[in-house]
């Protein structure tokens, strides 16, 4: 991506006004829109959760158009408006497949499900319930994930239920929970419209969240003196709109964030009254420190010392802190995988929260710490729904006896049914498959054999002799389905009905538009069938996802998530609703913890904000010292390696690579290099280079790009033929168990 300086950007946007329209609402109609039947839905791709309408004709999806009444104001990114093409893609899986030797051969549903049930029963009967596991997805519908979670935890009685949100936002969850006592952002997308300073770190929103980025650009163009700070080792497309761009050595961002806090105190940009009323201070896991302790901790993080460590300029750190803390202005932070996919991801999240807390820039329109989410239902389905190995629905924990008792009552199962020990988190689950402890695994709506770090290791585990792997997938072959013992054809997106919850606590209904392709079935039906065959049919008794939704609402009732007022009918007629929304007449909550907005804050609360998530009603400022990445560069592996997205493709590319417009747009993963590194290796753009880490080796084409940082190689994650994850590190954050996709060390030679 080419660069554009600030002057050029302002020139380009000089004529901008409140009517400026960026993004893409929909493609020119292939048919007269009046001839189409339109069904309200949500985009299938990222965590932005753009509302759209699906246009169908003769039982086929032929067009989409953005929902002008939703948060995205009718805009979609280029992937979104090409969605119709994925529905009838040539690699749609139309019937079940069963492995016979080296081949996957067509089978009937009865044959496939009988085999699956027999193998799961055998594994459970012989080795106990923890010999099986479920690996779900932030792309499954809420009702699907809820059904799987209930079946495995309350029916089979194993907590081996996890999902790919462990790979993308587990550190954000642990960050919110450790700081505020409750998960999920307190702010919303609308905060962008009120933000005077926007602080983006570890987020390439221009490519990963294009419609949120459009909103940021619009605010930049139309607001008065709006400042944007972008911090990222790579100068990405997002930095084009930055007033201040800070590059730094990968893995030094904890020091920079502490350096910002240092300047906030040194220049008296903190809110002492807010600190006294609302904050506690902590270190490690205990909130038993004082403000003085915290200030002593920060003493070491002078801008000069941080600059020397990180390679950023000291004056830039000071400027960023001044803009962040400027009195009388609002500040919104946004971050994504750059902070989360790290062995110190939780700490990095804590440090962003610290900045908002000590300045009191939180819970006001335009002032909020907001984590951006990668998948369309990571928040709503897996995170809120408690479908991770240590969680139960709606903020409850496996290890908490009271929470287990609540869920046993709600689920109508005998006391003691739910196992008290957390199950295996994602990589631990695949390692259990590797060493033979896990005998059977159900993988739904995701592609771990491409998306896991150190992928070759876990690809071998999936094919281990004796392991039985079921994959439900809309496409075949994927890098995971090719390794499965049974592949079940899953209905895709507009072929089924259910709820998605996006990054801002917004829940939305995707209505069914067309029949499933071939013999495909919704995952919801497949899971209900599995439950019946395993003798747990009474736990999943629903005829439709709508029936399950009523149970989901009841399970969330009285929790911090309470969305009891989101009836199916209300979801059908609304354009997304933000929880908490406890009663049918309630409008939903834009800003949590805020008096007058959040129904969980009493009307007579003493101040504008109440951090009710913790027993002392205070948010915690954590002292988190600088720690480098688990693997750092050395003489043998002298280059940093990082991975990420491009705008044209999504996740492992199973959908976007089926769009003809996107097939020749960043289709292939290439090694993006700084010109100096290319010269040192004696290569130019287009030359093959072999990139090798301690875990694997892949040949990519080299591509010299303007925004590359010297000493850093970037490869995108969307290419199944040149998998960036053969090289990435599977070391995990000890708290969140999220792997460090973003940083490892490699060497590069001309191939």
């Amino acid at each position, binding site marked *: 991506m080419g660069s554009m300086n600030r002057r050029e950007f302002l020139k*380009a946007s000089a004529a901008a006004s409140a009517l400026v329209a960026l993004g893409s609402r929909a493609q020119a109609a292939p048919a007269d829109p009046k001839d189409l039947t339109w069904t309200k839905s949500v985009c299938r791709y990222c965590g932005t959760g753009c509302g759209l309408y699906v246009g169908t004709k003769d039982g086929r999806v032929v067009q989409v158009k953005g929902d002008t009444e939703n948060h995205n104001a009718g805009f979609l990114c280029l992937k979104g408006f090409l969605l119709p093409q994925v529905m009838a893609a040539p690699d749609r899986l139309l019937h079940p497949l069963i492995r016979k030797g080296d081949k996957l051969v067509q089978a009937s549903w009865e044959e496939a499900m009988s085999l699956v049930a027999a193998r799961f029963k055998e594994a459970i009967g012989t080795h106990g319930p923890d010999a099986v596991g479920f690996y779900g997805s932030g792309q499954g519908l809420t009702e699907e994930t809820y059904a799987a979670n209930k079946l495995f935890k309350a029916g089979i009685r194993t907590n081996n239920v996890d999902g790919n949100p462990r790979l993308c936002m587990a550190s954000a969850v642990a960050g919110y929970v450790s700081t505020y006592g409750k998960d999920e952002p307190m702010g919303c997308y609308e905060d962008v419209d009120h933000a005077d300073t926007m602080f983006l770190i570890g987020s390439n929103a221009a490519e990963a969240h294009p419609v949120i980025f459009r909103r940021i650009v619009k605010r930049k163009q139309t607001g008065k003196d709006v400042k944007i700070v972008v911090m990222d080792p790579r100068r990405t497309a997002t930095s084009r709109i930055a007033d201040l761009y800070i590059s730094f050595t990968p893995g030094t961002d904890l020091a920079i964030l502490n350096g910002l806090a240092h300047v906030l105190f040194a220049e008296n940009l903190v809110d002492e009254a807010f600190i006294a009323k609302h904050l506690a201070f902590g270190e490690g896991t205990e909130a038993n420190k004082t403000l003085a302790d915290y200030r002593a901790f920060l003493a070491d993080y002078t801008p000069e010392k941080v600059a020397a460590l990180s390679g950023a300029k000291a004056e830039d750190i000071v400027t960023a802190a001044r803009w962040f803390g400027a009195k009388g202005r609002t500040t919104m932070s946004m971050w994504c995988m750059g902070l989360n996919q790290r062995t110190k991801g939780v700490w990095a999240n804590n440090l962003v929260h610290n900045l908002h807390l000590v300045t009191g820039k939180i819970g006001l329109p335009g002032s909020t710490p907001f984590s951006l989410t990668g998948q369309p239902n990571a928040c709503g389905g897996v995170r809120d729904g408690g479908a991770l190995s240590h969680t139960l629905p709606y903020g409850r924990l496996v290890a908490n006896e009271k929470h287990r008792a609540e869920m046993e009552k709600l689920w109508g199962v005998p006391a003691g049914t739910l196992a008290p020990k957390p199950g295996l988190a994602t990589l631990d689950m695949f390692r259990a498959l590797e060493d033979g402890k896990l005998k059977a695994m159900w993988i739904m709506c995701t592609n771990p054999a491409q998306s896991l770090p150190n992928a070759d290791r876990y690809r071998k585990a999936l094919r281990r002799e004796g392991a039985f792997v079921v994959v439900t997938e809309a496409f075949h072959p994927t890098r995971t389905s090719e390794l499965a013992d049974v592949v079940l054809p899953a209905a895709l997106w507009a072929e089924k009905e259910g709820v998605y919850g996006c990054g801002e606590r917004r829940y939305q209904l995707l209505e069914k538009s067309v029949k499933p392709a071939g013999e495909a079935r919704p995952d919801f039906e497949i899971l209900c069938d599995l439950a019946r065959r395993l003798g747990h049919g009474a736990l999943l008794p629903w005829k439709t996802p709508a029936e399950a939704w009523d149970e989901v609402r009841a399970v969330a009732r009285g929790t911090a998530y309470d969305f009891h007022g989101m009836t199916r009918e209300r979801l059908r007629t609304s354009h997304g609703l933000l929880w908490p929304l406890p009663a049918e007449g309630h409008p939903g909550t834009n800003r949590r913890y805020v008096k007058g907005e959040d129904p969980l804050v009493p009307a007579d609360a003493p101040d504008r904000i109440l951090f009710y998530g913790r027993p002392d009603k205070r948010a915690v400022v954590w002292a988190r010292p600088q720690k480098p990445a688990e693997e750092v560069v050395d003489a043998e592996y002298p280059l940093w390696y990082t991975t990420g997205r491009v705008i044209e493709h999504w996740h492992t590319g199973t959908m976007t690579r089926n769009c003809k417009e996107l097939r020749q747009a960043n289709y292939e993963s290439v090694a993006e290099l700084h010109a100096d590194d290319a010269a040192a290796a004696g290569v130019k753009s287009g030359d093959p280079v072999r990139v090798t880490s301690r875990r694997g080796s892949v040949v990519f084409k080299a591509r010299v790009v303007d925004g590359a940082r010297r000493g850093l190689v970037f490869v995108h994650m969307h290419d199944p033929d040149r998998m960036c994850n053969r090289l990435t590190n599977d070391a995990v954050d000890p708290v969140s168990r999220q792997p460090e996709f973003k940083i490892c060390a490699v060497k590069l030679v001309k191939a």
Partner: protein
Amino acid sequence: MTRSTVALCAALLLVAAAPRAAAAGARARAHVDTAGEQDCASCHRTETPAAFAAWEGSPHGVALVKCVVCHGSTGKDFRARPAAKGCASCHAAQAASVEKRPVSDCFACHAPHSLSAHPHR
């Protein structure tokens, strides 16, 4: 792809970029085979530098509304001269207001590729 075919393609696109040409019709011309290229920018940054720079510096460029949105793929659906009616799919209200104006279409005021934005009164 040879340099000359790229240049020919570039010439076609530059013609397409002229407002009158765009207004004249939306008939697709075949795009040259782009197998092996990384993306549109791989060629067009250097082969059609004016059009590329105009797009890159525009609101569409900042928001990464890339070539395919208006021009389609390089296959049979390639549109060398995207029709102005396509604008309506993103800018419905503005496109509707054009019908009340003494202009041929959107491109009469908004030069293709730069497509600068301003309020429609």
